């Protein structure tokens, strides 16, 4: 059994989980919801083993390093953290339906990684040979995953307000009755960002510490750094907006969606469209 086979199984499992969650949305059958969650957990378990195995395989190849060194590995880790956070929300707050809006993000990541990317294990170029790699990547991606979950929850919020319209005093029946109440969605959105923001802050700080250690500057306004700061500003605005009247609810949900769009641009857009020090796989000294 190789890690790449296990990653394929993971992708497939997330696909099944998503389909079951959609069926759960349509049928409102509790057992389908339970099945969706358990399939997602099974995928998470397989993926955990796969990541550990890939780690070990890199040592067997003599180029041992944590599997977080290129775009492929980072996407896989991102998917893993998203499902991990979903599991936390599911178990802690018992809102299974969130899975229908969060698992697709994980599936999208895995499918793209498995189908569109070079999956080979590569040795670490000198710039990445540092313990900071692990701290930096783990904090950043846990933060990103929390924002992904917040975005999924915000989309649920926006759908629910759109369907229920202005007359929110009389909650709509049908599909919408499965969604948690608006107040709960708003609260979950806030809680996810309360997890993501400290992690993003740690991610930026560990990145700055690493940059200072490797290049002698903790901040050089590199596009990646700048975009991470933009994301930080957006969520800082979100946190402050919540204390102001008139910004809770719909506007907060939009800020959360915009924040995640900025996060995705920071993660992928910067590498695809702009140049800088984080070009995955490029050997920058």
């Amino acid at each position, binding site marked *: 059994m190789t890690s790449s086979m296990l990653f394929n199984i993971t992708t497939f499992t997330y696909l099944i989980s998503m389909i079951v969650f959609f069926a759960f949305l349509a049928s409102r059958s509790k057992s389908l919801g339970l099945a969706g969650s358990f399939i997602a957990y099974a995928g998470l378990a397989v993926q955990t083993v796969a990541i550990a195995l890939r780690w070990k395989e890199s040592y067997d190849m003599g180029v041992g390093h944590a599997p977080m060194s290129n775009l492929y590995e980072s996407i896989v880790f991102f998917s893993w953290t998203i499902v991990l956070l979903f599991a936390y929300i599911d178990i802690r707050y018992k809102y299974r339906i969130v899975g229908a809006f969060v698992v697709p993000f994980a599936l999208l990541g895995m499918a793209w990684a498995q189908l569109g990317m070079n999956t080979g294990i590569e040795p670490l170029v000198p710039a990445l040979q540092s313990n900071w790699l692990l701290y930096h990547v783990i904090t950043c991606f846990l933060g990103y995953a929390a924002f992904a979950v917040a975005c999924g929850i915000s989309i649920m919020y926006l759908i629910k307000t759109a369907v229920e319209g202005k007359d929110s005093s009389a909650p709509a029946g049908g599909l919408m009755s499965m969604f948690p109440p608006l107040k709960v969605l708003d609260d979950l959105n806030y809680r996810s960002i309360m997890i993501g923001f*400290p992690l993003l802050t740690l991610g930026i700080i560990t990145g700055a510490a690493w940059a*200072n250690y490797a*290049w002698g500057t903790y901040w050089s306004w590199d596009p990646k750094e700048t975009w991470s700061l933009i994301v930080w500003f957006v969520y*800082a*605005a979100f946190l402050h907006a919540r204390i102001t009247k008139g910004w809770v609810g719909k506007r907060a949900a939009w800020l959360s969606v915009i924040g995640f769009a900025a996060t995705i641009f920071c993660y992928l857009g910067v590498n695809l469209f702009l140049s800088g020090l984080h070009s995955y796989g490029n050997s920058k000294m």
Partner: protein
Amino acid sequence: MAPTERSFVITVWDYLCSLKLTLFLLISLALTSIIGTILPQGALPPEYVAQISQTKLQIYSKLGFFDMYHSWWFITLLYVFSLNLVSCSIKRLPHVFKFISEPALVLGEGQRNSFSLKKELTFSAPAEKAKERLSLFLGKEFAAPVITEHNGEYHLFAQKTAWCRLGVYVVHFSILVIFIGAIIGSLAGYKGFVTIVEGARINSFEGRNGQRMPLGFDVLCEKFTVEFYSTGAPKEFRSILTIMENGKPVPGYSQVKVIVNEPLTYKGITFYQSSYGQSNEGGEHFVTVTPRTGGTPEKFTVHEGEAVTLKDGTTFKLLEATQEVRQFAPGFSGPAARIEVTRKGAAPQTFISFKNFPDTNAARGDALTFGYEGTNAKQYTGLQVAKDPGVWVVWLGCALMVIGIGVAFFMSHKRIWVVISKKHARMYGNASKNQAAFQMQFEDIAEKFHEIKI
């Protein structure tokens, strides 16, 4: 001061303290920061200048878009941001201190209805006795209470982690500390670059503005090496450096290995492995020419680009050389050179000659076999040079920020009141944050509270 003037001052002050300004600044900083990630910053590449229209170029330059993070308007935004942080802290901190040091010991009738967490206990003993009993209970289960007698009722007040309300202000303060660190760095620090040829010493480096700056000591590059993985990707760039003062190596700073991610710091100045290259000054390359039919190889010492004519009229030229060919020719390794050979009356031919693969050289099948034997040219190492006395202030600010966020996000100010009247006592609870988690704790206490026999 005239009333209108005074109200104007107050209006400005209120605006400076306002959350509205904070939101405006955060969103403006986020939006304007995008410019610098799209437009090139610093020295403009000629291709960019050629492709952009003159008017655009002028407008962008005028607006400082090509060095936007240091432009007057971006710096102004950061100053107003700092001002906003300071003003809102000045405005709110006294209230917070008061809230912590003078808590609401007595719960008014009206306030009691606003609590979602409450529990009642009825008893037959006198209120005096219930007060003693419940005060011990609160002390054991939560925190030692303050007892106040008011309108014939006893108010027991207990609280935990009131100071966590200061967490937000620690975060705000930490941002200012980071700014101060950055300002110290830009005033008292510098950055630059230096190249040192193997075996050579330097005592100055090139600053950002292009001028030479003295180090105050010498740096000797003993050796520079590059290692590669079998895939051809670089594995390690290594300089061996020795710091010298008064012509002698400084103890403990002799033959220090400097690689990427492992810099060398001496007297507050840090050297980072950054680039490398082949030094061409006086570099001689060695080439052997062997007739295919056999015979003694003839040795030549040539410079790059220099043409040599052999006895039979053939000329050859060493176009370029590398000491590690792996990255250009996978499957090969070691030194190699690109050689151009022109046989008399024929067109020039170009090929690569390897030091470690003589069979490949011979397999070319020409009447003459060219072998590259290496060079006495030296490599140079390129080092970033930086001094930043403000960096520790920045790290202090970052540590404060992490602590502050931890306190502000994950801790809450928990308060419990017990109001004792005749025959019954009521308990009320409230948390500044994460009410759900506190609810569990409260319900736990409330259950025990309910079962107390007095």
